[in-house]
Structures are given as structure tokens and as C-alpha cells.
């Protein structure tokens, strides 16, 4: 029996090719992700082995920086060959235009350069700064700012004052990506403290004297440093650094694995369909085996063995493909998302190989089980009968199918509604998604019941355009609803997810855009430079004053914020200056009245109704009465936990400095003129970052379109697998319909028309998949948006252009998938094909 199976496999290899490709792509995606994660991890380990090289003991600051005295105490310990304090803080470097060099709108860094050269996490080209007037700069920034040793650079202290420094050398961080993309100025620790106000060290690193055990040394260091500091050996520290850095890659790979799972599910459908069709075509062969004495178990075993061999082969090729995909992921993550994953030669451990092979076999065998069971029901007599050309499903089975589908959809809908109505947005979103998956399963179960009619409906305009050949195509697409359903299911999944992503992202974009333009009809939002950990420079009130003096602007609004605790939790509240509130800025009130905002009152975001809140600032608690709810997102400062009046904010202890200054250009002033004016006003304030709303909104567009593209790309594998499925179903159908096609040709269907019928059939399948997928996405997309982003009261938007594009893509790609089967069908000789039994 095994020999018969393998011989059969060899003969049918071509027909199993699409199945194998589906396995290869699905497994490749997963294996590629695993290989990528392992490789990225290895890369991070290498990098951090360098960052913490020669470090035997590391003392890491806990909540607060390590006091300067700690270093002296550590240096005094026995067994310490050398110890250094490391200090790094945000420090803005000015470019030749006098503007801060930023990355993602954030200022760069300063790192301390004094101490033991062996303990430095970087190499120095030149010499280390000797006095207060000297500095180092990382070589990448020096490169793009065209600076060389001997030039003068300017840095800004936190108050915005300029400090010129002479460049005496360059910093080389090697492969370390810790500061990748940011400017890094090397200065003595004391100088950094003076410029940024940072006191104490982030980390103290220790080199042990020869013969001292790092573990023991760590034990003696612990009592010498501040409480809360984390003391570990160098090896532990290196491992921990690598793990932290890998977490970015790990999160990314979890997302990837979700998409990999989608690809595998799609692959299951393709494999199932292939085996179902192959076994239907092989009924005679199977029956013959039964005639000559094969038991049902042997027939079942043969199919399972066949699928296992295909799965193993596909899994093996999938692992190989995974290596290529891992390279692609590196390019994607570093090139497109700027993630800075260190380069490393591909690590191919046993885990991805085993996982790939296992997945390949399990997925393929699982998908082939049902067809295999069906094959065992073949009666030996079927060998002698002619094949029934059309399969009619029994009434009872249709009713059972319908009942199961209704059950799934109803359960899914119930869970979805529960999620949508749930008070907790996060748990609700989870329920909506879970309900969505269950409902989708119901849809897939029901698919054979409705694809026929849907195909006919979609086919109406096609028939109108293409005439009789299209009618033949529609009839062919309808003849085997189970097969068409399984083929289009793959497209339903892929396109449904794409549509869902598109709706969610477009809605987020529209909501954000509304908040930018609707209630803040301003042209510019000026903020202070932001530093690491969300700290941000304030704008002196003189800036707003000078702006108001310019005739180019019709209105200027100041926003101040204050970090407080609301009901015990840390939060940021804000206020808009009294002159602008109600004038230039109108709050988008959900309930209540913005006019009631005054001393002792507050406006909070909608969602959690409460009569009053307690705000603690500067050790003093103030109870504020809630007079309304509104969207509290302000351009440039994000979402605020509460809005109070200008005077109330001052009373709570806010200083005279603005977080955001918004400006609206006077009517008739050209955008370039207003931009020049605001830049001129900003020139004496180097910390001011001018953002035009037009820029923000085009950045937003770019970001959202990029994300839609990314999701489309990730779902692309599923689409490609789905298209192999379409091609596969068609080519198997072509084989099955050899004599029919020949008859059509004999009675007058031209070669081109025969090709046309297959292309139309493919397009119909593509459109059916797209229509169902898009319908699903348009129901669940808005539900997800409404539940997940309830706090910001989102506006649901259907991105019609994207959906039309998806539809066209599905039709076009299916057409492409049909090209080869169509050519094969059309090139067959009529006479030979007529003789085919």
C-alpha cells in the first residue's frame, strides 16, 4: 500500500504542487519569524557584549540616579581595579541653522566620557574632552552635519541658552544601536550635570582586580551603594540588556506570528480543497484498490501518508524559504520601521526547523483528514460506474450546515454585542474580536450555501458584458458550491482582514484629523523640544507675546500643562488661555458647557462619569467639580486627563511657561508668509519646535497609509496562498472538464473564448471572496473602532478607495491566477480531449 501511495504521489506530483506551495508559504512565514527572532537576539547579545565589555559588576540606578558619593565608595572597595560612573541625558545639539538636531521630534543625548578607557561603551577617535569647552560627537552625526575635529558645536541647556564647544574627537559606538539615529555629544559627567541638571549616575560599572570573583565582588558592592540600586555581575547585565533590546523584536515577531497563523489557516483551506478534488477525481482509482482488496483503513492511511509526505516536503522547503523571509524581515524592520536591529549572520537553530517540519506535516494532514475519511466511503463498485458529473448535496446535510452556521454566527454576534456594550474598552475589544472570529467561522461554514447565488448575482453584469462564454463560466463556478466556497474562503479571510485593518486605520486617521482641524482651527502648533522619558522644554510666555504682535496672525492660543495626581494616580492636566477659549479654541463638549469652566471646576474626557475629582499638586489636594465632558486632546500635547481654567491651573501651581502655542494665520496671508513670520518669531527661542497643522496632517496620512500598506504586505502572503488556491482549483477543474471543454470547442467556442470562460470563472471567485470579505470588514471594522477607541469618541470612516482597490486587486489577481490553467485548457487538442474519459 505504501508503495502504491508513493507511486501515486510521483504521478500526481504536479497536481499537488499548489498544495506544497501553500505549505511552503505558510510554514515559511512562521519559520522566518522564528529564525528572525533568534537572529535578532544573537545580534543584540553581540552588541551588548560590547556595550558592557570589561564590566564585571554593574550597579544600575533604581528610581533615582546614583549619588556621586556612591562612586567614591565603590572605588574604595577591595578587589575593584577600576570603577566609573556613567551618565546619559537628553541634550540638544544645534545644527548649522541654529535648530536642534532631532530624531522623531526628540533631542539627542549627552554621554559621560571621563574614567577608565577600558570601561567605556564606545571607542574614541581623537582625545577625550579635557575642559569645559571641549566635546566629542558621534561620528554619524558629525558625518551628516559635516563637522570635523576642531570645529565648534553648539548645545542648548534646559533653559535654552547656547553653549559653544570645541570638537576634540569622535565617538564610535560600533554596532551598538542604543543611540542609533540620535546625536550623541560626549562630555565630562560634571559638564553634563551642569547643562542638563542631572545629578548622579545612571550606572556605575566596575572592573574587578585580577583573581577577584565578579559574583563575590557584586556582593560587596551592594552595601556600598544607594538603596534600590540594582547590582549584578557583568554577565547578567549583558544578558539582561540583550533581553530588553530583544523585546522589541519579540513583540514584532508576535504580531508576525499572528499573521503567520492567518497564512496557515488559508493554507489549510487550499490543502483541503486540493485533496477533496484530487480524491473526487480519483474515485475510480480508489474503488479499484478497494476491488482488489484494500481495506477502508488502508485507503485512509494512504491518503494520510500522502498528505504527510507533501507536508514534510513543504515544511522542509518552508524552512528554507523562512531563511529568506528572515532576511526580508530585517530589511523591513530596519529599513522601513527604523528599529535598529543589529546585523548578525542568520541563526538557524533546531527550533525553527522542527517547528517548520511539524507545522507542515500537522497542517497538511489535518487539512487532508476530512477528504481522507470521505475517500474511505468509496464503494468498490464505483470503479465500474461512470462518475456523476454534478454532485448534489442532500437536503438534510444542507439543513445541518445551516443550523451549525446560524449557531456560530449567533454566538459570535452575542459575544460581539457584549463586548461592544462592555464598560471596559480593552476587555470589550477582546470580546468583539473573539466574537468576530466565531461569527466568521459561521460565515465559512455557511459559505457553500450562499456562494452559488452570490456567484450568480456577481455574474449578472459579467454575463451582460461577456455573453455566452460568461454564462458557461457562471454555471461552472456554481456547479460545485463546496469547492467554490473552500476556494473563495481563503480570499474571504485575507480580504476580510485587509478590509478590517483599512477601516480601523482610516477611522483613526479621520478621528485624529477631526481633532486637528475641527475644534482647533489653527495653522501652527508650536511646542518645546522634547527630551527622553516624555520630558519637554517649556516655551517662555515671551514667545506667545511676540507672536501676538505679528500682523500675519489672526489668533494665538496658549496651552499650559501641569503634572499632578488625580485621585492618587499620576496625570497631566491642562488649560487654554482665557482669551482664546471660546474664541479661537472651542471645546468639543460631549456633555455640559465649556462656559461653566472657572475656579473650582473641571472638564474631563467622556467615558467615566463622576461628580468631582481630586487633584493633588505640590502636596496640596484640591477638589474640583466636573461641569462637563469633552475631548481633551490638544495638538502637540496629546490627551490630557482634565481641563481646568487658566486661573485654576495657576492656582494649582503652574509656572508662567507654555507647553503649546497655537496660531491661526490671518485671512489673506499666504502659507509661506505665515511660516516665515512664525519662524522669525521662533528664531530667538531655539527650543521652540514649529509644526504646521498641514505638515502634521500629511505626516498622519503618511503614517496611516504606511500602516495600511504594512498590514496589506503582511496579509499579502495569505493573499498569495489564496491565489495559488484559485489557480489550483481551476487547474484541477480544467483536468476534470477536459471532455467538456473539448465539446464546447467542437460546437463553436473559440480558443480565446475558452480561455475567457476560465478567466471569468476566476474573476467571479475573486469577486465573491472580496465581496464577502469586504462586507465582513465593514461590519467588524466599525465595531472594533467603536469599542477600542471609545475614549476618544472615534469617527468611523469607510475607506472606499481602498476597498475598491481591494476589489480590483482580488479580481485582477484571480485573473492572473487563471492564466496558466486557461492556457492549458485552450491548448488541448479537441480530438485528444474528446477521447478523454
Amino acid at each position, binding site marked *: 500500500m505504501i508503495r502504491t501511495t508513493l507511486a501515486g504521489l510521483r504521478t500526481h506530483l504536479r497536481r499537488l504542487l499548489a498544495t506544497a506551495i501553500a505549505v511552503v508559504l505558510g510554514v515559511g512565514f512562521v519559520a522566518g519569524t522564528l529564525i528572525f527572532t533568534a537572529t535578532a537576539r544573537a545580534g543584540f547579545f553581540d552588541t551588548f557584549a560590547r556595550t558592557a565589555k570589561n564590566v564585571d559588576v554593574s550597579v544600575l540606578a533604581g528610581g533615582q540616579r546614583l549619588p556621586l558619593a556612591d562612586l567614591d565608595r565603590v572605588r574604595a572597595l577591595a578587589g575593584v581595579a577600576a570603577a566609573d560612573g556613567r551618565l546619559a541625558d537628553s541634550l540638544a545639539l544645534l545644527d548649522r541653522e541654529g535648530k536642534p538636531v532631532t530624531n522623531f521630534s526628540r533631542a539627542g543625548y549627552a554621554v559621560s566620557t571621563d574614567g577608565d578607557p577600558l570601561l567605556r561603551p564606545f571607542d574614541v577617535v581623537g582625545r577625550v574632552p579635557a575642559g569645559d569647552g571641549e566635546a566629542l560627537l558621534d561620528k554619524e552625526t558629525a558625518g551628516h552635519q559635516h563637522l570635523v575635529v576642531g570645529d565648534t558645536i553648539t548645545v542648548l541647556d534646559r533653559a535654552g541658552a547656547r553653549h559653544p564647544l570645541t570638537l576634540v574627537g569622535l565617538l564610535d559606538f560600533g554596532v551598538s544601536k542604543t543611540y542609533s539615529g540620535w546625536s550623541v555629544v560626549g562630555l565630562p559627567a560634571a559638564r553634563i550635570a551642569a547643562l542638563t541638571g542631572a545629578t548622579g549616575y545612571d550606572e556605575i560599572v566596575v572592573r574587578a582586580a585580577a583573581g577577584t570573583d565578579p559574583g563575590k565582588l557584586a556582593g560587596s558592592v551592594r552595601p556600598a551603594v544607594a538603596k534600590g540600586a540594582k547590582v549584578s555581575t557583568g554577565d547578567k547585565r549583558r544578558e539582561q540588556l540583550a533581553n530588553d533590546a530583544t523585546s522589541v523584536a519579540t513583540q514584532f515577531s508576535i504580531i508576525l506570528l499572528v499573521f503567520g497563523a492567518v497564512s496557515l489557516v488559508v493554507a489549510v483551506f487550499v490543502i483541503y480543497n486540493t485533496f477533496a478534488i484530487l480524491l473526487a477525481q480519483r474515485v475510480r482509482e480508489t474503488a479499484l484498490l478497494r476491488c482488489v482488496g484494500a481495506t477502508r483503513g488502508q485507503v485512509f492511511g494512504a491518503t494520510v501518508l500522502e498528505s504527510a509526505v507533501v507536508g514534510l516536503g513543504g515544511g522542509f522547503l518552508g524552512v528554507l524559504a523562512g531563511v529568506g523571509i528572515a532576511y526580508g524581515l530585517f530589511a523591513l524592520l530596519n529599513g522601513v520601521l527604523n528599529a535598529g536591529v543589529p546585523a548578525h549572520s542568520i541563526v538557524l537553530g533546531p527550533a525553527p526547523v522542527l517547528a517548520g517540519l511539524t507545522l507542515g506535516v500537522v497542517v497538511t494532514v489535518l487539512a487532508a483528514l476530512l477528504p481522507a475519511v470521505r475517500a474511505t466511503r468509496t464503494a468498490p463498485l464505483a470503479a465500474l460506474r461512470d462518475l456523476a458529473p454534478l454532485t448534489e448535496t442532500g437536503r438534510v446535510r444542507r439543513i445541518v450546515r445551516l443550523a451549525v452556521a446560524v449557531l456560530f454566527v449567533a454566538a459570535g454576534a452575542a459575544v460581539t454585542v457584549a463586548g461592544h456594550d462592555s464598560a471596559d474598552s480593552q476587555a470589550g475589544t477582546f470580546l468583539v474580536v473573539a466574537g468576530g472570529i466565531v461569527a466568521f467561522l459561521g460565515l465559512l461554514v455557511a459559505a457553500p450555501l450562499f456562494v452559488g447565488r452570490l456567484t450568480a448575482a456577481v455574474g449578472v453584469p459579467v454575463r451582460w458584458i461577456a455573453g455566452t462564454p460568461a454564462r*458557461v463560466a457562471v454555471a461552472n463556478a456554481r*456547479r460545485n458550491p463546496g469547492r467554490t466556497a473552500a476556494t473563495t474562503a481563503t480570499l474571504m479571510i485575507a480580504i476580510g482582514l485587509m478590509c478590517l485593518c483599512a477601516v480601523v486605520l482610516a477611522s483613526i486617521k479621520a478621528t485624529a484629523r477631526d481633532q486637528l482641524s475641527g475644534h482647533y482651527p489653527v495653522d501652527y502648533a508650536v511646542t518645546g523640544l522634547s527630551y527622553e522619558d516624555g520630558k519637554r522644554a517649556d516655551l517662555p510666555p515671551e514667545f506667545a507675546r511676540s507672536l501676538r504682535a505679528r500682523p500675519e496672525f489672526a489668533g494665538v492660543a496658549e496651552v499650559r500643562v501641569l503634572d499632578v495626581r488625580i485621585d492618587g494616580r499620576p496625570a497631566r492636566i491642562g488649560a487654554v488661555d482665557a482669551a482664546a477659549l471660546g474664541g479661537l479654541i472651542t471645546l468639543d463638549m460631549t456633555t455640559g458647557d465649556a462656559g461653566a469652566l472657572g475656579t473650582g471646576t473641571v472638564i474631563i474626557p467622556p467615558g467615566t462619569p463622576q461628580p468631582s475629582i481630586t487633584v493633588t499638586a505640590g502636596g496640596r489636594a484640591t477638589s474640583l467639580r466636573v461641569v462637563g465632558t469633552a475631548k481633551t486632546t490638544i495638538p502637540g500635547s496629546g490627551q490630557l486627563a482634565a481641563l481646568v481654567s487658566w486661573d485654576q491651573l495657576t492656582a494649582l501651581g503652574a509656572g508662567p511657561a507654555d507647553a503649546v502655542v497655537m496660531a491661526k494665520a490671518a485671512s489673506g496671508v499666504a502659507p509661506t508668509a505665515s511660516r516665515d513670520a512664525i519662524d522669525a518669531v521662533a528664531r530667538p527661542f531655539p527650543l521652540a519646535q514649529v509644526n504646521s497643522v498641514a505638515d502634521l496632517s500629511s505626516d498622519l496620512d503618511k503614517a496611516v497609509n504606511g500602516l495600511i500598506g504594512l498590514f496589506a504586505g503582511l496579509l499579502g502572503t495569505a493573499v498569495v496562498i489564496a491565489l495559488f488556491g484559485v489557480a489550483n482549483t481551476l487547474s484541477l477543474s480544467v483536468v476534470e472538464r477536459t471532455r467538456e471543454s473539448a465539446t464546447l*470547442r*467542437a*460546437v*463553436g467556442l473559440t480558443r480565446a473564448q475558452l480561455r475567457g470562460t476560465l478567466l471569468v470563472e476566476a474573476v467571479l471567485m475573486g469577486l465573491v471572496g472580496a465581496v464577502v470579505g469586504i462586507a465582513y470588514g465593514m461590519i467588524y471594522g466599525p465595531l472594533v473602532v467603536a469599542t477600542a477607541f471609545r475614549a476618544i469618541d472615534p469617527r468611523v470612516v469607510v475607506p472606499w478607495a481602498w476597498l475598491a482597490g481591494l476589489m480590483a486587486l482580488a479580481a485582477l489577481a484571480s485573473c492572473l491566477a487563471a492564466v496558466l490553467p486557461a492556457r492549458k485548457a485552450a491548448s488541448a487538442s*479537441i*480530438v485528444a480531449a*474528446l477521447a478523454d474519459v
Partner: protein
Amino acid sequence: MLPEAYEDRDSGPTTGTAALPSVGGMQTIVRPAVAVTDLTKVYGTGDTAVRALDGVSVTFAAGGFTAIMGPSGSGKSTLMHCAAGLDTVTSGTVQLFDGRGEATDLTGLGDTALTKLRRTRIGFVFQQFNLLPTLTAAQNITLPLELAGARPDPEWYATVVDVLGLRDRLGHRPNQLSGGQQQRVACARALLARPDVVFADEPTGNLDSKTGQEVLDFLRRSVAELGQTVVMVTHDPTAAAYADRVVLLADGRLVDEIARPTADSVLDRLKRLGA
């Protein structure tokens, strides 16, 4: 009435002669529907080349019912396929004549032109019926005309459907029809366009003798009453006896022909061929 006529002939003397008449020498009284001249068909090349047809010349008269017979591998199916424009020829010509006697050389036509010609000028009846399972009987019948973008003549359509007794079967799909009914649908499909010639390839091969006779009766009537031209490939002498002429092939050559055949005379000649 028609079957009786056959029986009459069956009981009569065989009309064949001992000498094998050459085709070229045969006198044609009526105008031709299909004329095949010096037809050669070679499959394969070199050592494996097979001469399926070796210089066959034969004319099928318009309004005649001709049976092509011969042992397996004699080339009878190849002759039909070439004459019907389904297969290409190695050399020679195939002329199809329309109602006004104008000839079209099929060997000079491209695939698309041939396909378009087949829609209205050639009808087919196959051994396996070859109906499209997805279309109803009515849709199957009108398929060639629809492909040609033409509407069937409603009167003629009604006549064909009624003569074949398909009136109450028109909405059925092929898998809901018996073999005989399916073959009658195939006959209707072949006749609806009033083609210049109908080629029938073993039309009774998949039918029991009673339904086979019904189909043959119908083909006979379409010739006698409707003036249709029918060329039938068969290996069954009884079926051949329904024709008014039998041409015999062996090894790719025309070797004999029988005018007004009977089952006995055909069997007799076939035996002689085999010897």
C-alpha cells in the same frame, strides 16, 4: 414507415459487387456536402510516425446518410475528425459546400475561423453524448447558435424539439435525463442550426439497442424528411444499415463502398476485409 423500408431492403439481395469500385469513378448524381481529396494524416515523426489516413478521397453527398466503417485503427474516426475540421491534416483538402454549392476549404482555415464555422455549418453527435452538465437541455440545444450570436428560428426549434420528443425535458439538466434522452438532446443541438453536415461518432455506442434504434431512426428521418446530410462513424453493421451508403476503410485507405447497405451485406464485406 421508415423502419419498414429498412426491413424491405434487409430482405432484398445485396447490392455490392465483387470488384472494389474506385471512389473517383463513382458517379455523383446530387451535389456534394463534403468533399475530401487525397487526405493524408500522419501522427508523430520519424520511426514512430503512424499514417492514420493515406490518400483518402471521398465525397459525402448533400442530403445523404453515409456510414464510415472499418476495423479498429482503420482511420475512420480520424477521417471524421479531419472532415469536420476538428483535426489538422498532413496533406490533402477538405471542402465543405454550403446550400448554394459554394466550397470552403477547411484545411486553409485558422483555428478561430474553423471554430466559428463549426457553430452553424457542422453539427456533432458523440458517443458519450457530451452535453454540458451545467446547462439545461434547452440551453444545450441552443448553445452553438448562441455562441454564434444568432437566435434560433422558433418554428424550427419547435419542430426539432417535438420530433425528438423533448418538449417536457427542456428544463432538465443532463444528469436528470436517460442516455437515450441525452443523445436526443445532442441530436437536437446538432440539427438546430441546420448545418451543412452532421457528423455522428458512434452515436449508439453508449445506448441499449432500443434507444439506439430510436436515435438512428431519427437520424434517418432527418435525412429523408428534413434533407439533412449525415455522416456517421460506426462499427455496428445494424447501425450502418440505416445509412444509404457505407464507405469502408482499412489501414488508412478507402477500400470498399456499399450503396443501399443491409446489415448482412455490411457484415459480409467486413468479414472479407478481416480475411
